[in-house]
């Protein structure tokens, strides 16, 4: 019915996830880190939707789950940004290197 194997979608999701992960762990700008995390969430959503169609028992639930994930991601982005702004106000930077209060 479909000419595209499930593994292709999964591989795409994997690549995007890895890009997001790399970005989240290596970028210095906090905004980019946040957005990289969004990318990772997206990759996961692809997986969810893929299995909703290609799973052993296809079901709409996968899509619903993806929907919830998007919602949570949106909320997370908002809160993350708020924290970022609060931090920026105190420390005048968004550079993640300088946020090392855990060390002290």
């Amino acid at each position, binding site marked *: 019915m479909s000419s595209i194997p499930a593994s292709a979608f999964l591989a795409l999701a994997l690549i995007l996830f890895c890009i997001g992960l790399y970005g989240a762990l290596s970028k210095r700008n906090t905004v980019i880190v946040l957005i990289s995390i969004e990318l990772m969430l997206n990759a996961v959503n692809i997986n969810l939707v893929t299995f909703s169609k290609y799973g052993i028992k296809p079901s709409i639930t996968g899509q619903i789950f993806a929907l919830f994930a998007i919602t949570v991601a949106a909320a997370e982005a908002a809160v993350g940004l708020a924290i970022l702004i609060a931090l920026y106000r105190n420390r005048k930077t968004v550079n*993640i290197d300088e946020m090392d*209060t855990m060390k002290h």
Partner: protein
Amino acid sequence: MMETAWIIPLFPLLSFLILLLFGRRLKEASAFVGILLTLASLVYSILVLFERFTAPTYKSEAAWLNIGDLHLTAGFEVNQLNALMLVIVSLVSCLVHTYSKGYMHGDERIPVFYAYLGLFTFAMQGLVLSPNLLQTYIFWELVGVGSFLLIGFYFYKEEAKAAAKKAFIMTRIGDVGLLIGMILLFWQTNSFEYDEIFKAVREGAISQGWITLTALLIFVGAVGKSGQFPLHTWLPDAMEGPTPVSALIHAATMVAAGVYLVAALFPLFAASKTALLTIAIIGAFTAIFAASIGLVQTDIKRVLAYSTVSQLGYMMLALGSAGYVAGVFHLMTHAFFKALLFLAAGSVIHAVHTQNIEEMGGLWKKLRLTGPLFLIGTLAISGVPLLSGFFSKDEILAAAWEGGHPILFLLAVIAAFFTAFYMFRLFFMVFTGEARSEMKHVHESPGVMTLPMIVLGVLAVISGYVNTPWFGTFLGDWLTKGNDSLGHSHVEGPGWIMIVATLVSLAGIFLAWLIYGKKSLSRDWLSGRGGALHTILYNKYYIDEFYQLTIVSLTKGMSYFLRFIDLFLVEGIVKGVAGFVQGLGKTGSKVQNGQVQTYGAMAFVGLAVLVVIFALTGGYLK
């Protein structure tokens, strides 16, 4: 009496304990405690000796220590030798106790002095009563300590401190030899008992090699204690102690312990020709070696000390030549006349407050009692006929001749000549000649000091007559009765030996008189002839310096080398490990920079590694 002979050493021990505990309150009165208690043990010893003349050997033992199946015992034994030694020790000790009352008068540490004397006497009496090697060793060490304490009695003097230390360590070197020999012997015979050892030797239960080895090792102990070459250097230094101590310990008793030990173990030594020969050689060499040093010394006590070393060498020579009786006989006579000489020397020192004989002279008229007594001692030691030393020395010479080693005999004769010479050199320099101006206030010692000297003087004259070729060899017969392994009671040497000995000693006296008495020969005649020789002799053959250079430096070098190892190798390894761990920690702590991102990266990479491992090992899909 013999059954309770164990009480004898307890008297001085009691004295030691009482003075240790209450000495501070007794002050000078502590002298009486010491004197009375040693007197008691002297009386007891004499009674035991008299009983031993008739009764057989008595021995009693009790368990001391059990180790598994081994049972070590402690006890006491009264045989001829022990009984004799006991009396000698008690007698000299008692006399020295009395003498010290005068000599140490005014010293605030009299109680301590008497306590130490008590300890020493206790140990020495214990030593001569010991029925086994272990007990001998125990008391052997204890007498060493007594000697150490008394040498270091003037603790504030640096020389006394050094001498005490030296005495202890040098004798300990010998003691270790004794310890090794004794332990080896133990594993050969399974016993420390003299009787068991002799039995094993008689029955041939020990191989010849073992006998020789153990005998020589035990002899090392005797060498250390009796100041034989090469462990003799401590004995002259030990003269730093108070003079009565030198008389008691370093002349009459403790230094004779080495001779006593060889005598007590004589059946063991007799079973090995090599051991006997070694003893004889070392004895003869020491006799002449020490006598030659004694020729030029200027310290009155040191001359006597070297004389002691030399005389002990004589005794060793006698024992080594199988002259058991001769050795013991000389041990006894020597104890009397050498103690006399030391006490007289002490009396001189007490009077003039110096020990340098160059600063003395003309004391004969001032010390009316000390002078003649000193002369008696000098005559006795020189082997002038009719005095005790003559008979015992003659016995030794005869034994050496019979021993079959003419060279040793020759050495002994030369040593006898030397002895006569340096002893009379001493006598002439101290008692004759011009009286020095600063010696005006010299006066004779008090009665407590002269009385013991008189007793010893009498003994120095008569004690020889217990064993003479003329009036019977009573001592020898008694000593060897019932024990064949000790050899003949009397060695019948050729008659000319006695004449030779007499002539030699008279020649020595005559030469000394020429140089120091009549002064018809310049004193430089001797020293000038052999300038280098004189220097060597005066510096005691540089033995001390040699030891200092070799053994002491080696030990120190070893120590520093090991310290180097300790500091750099051991600590280095430790530091290396610590540094490694620290480095690891530092690397680790770098990761802990407080940045969430780094933590995340670490955690993720860790996860990735795990996942990869699982994927590769296949655990992932199964």
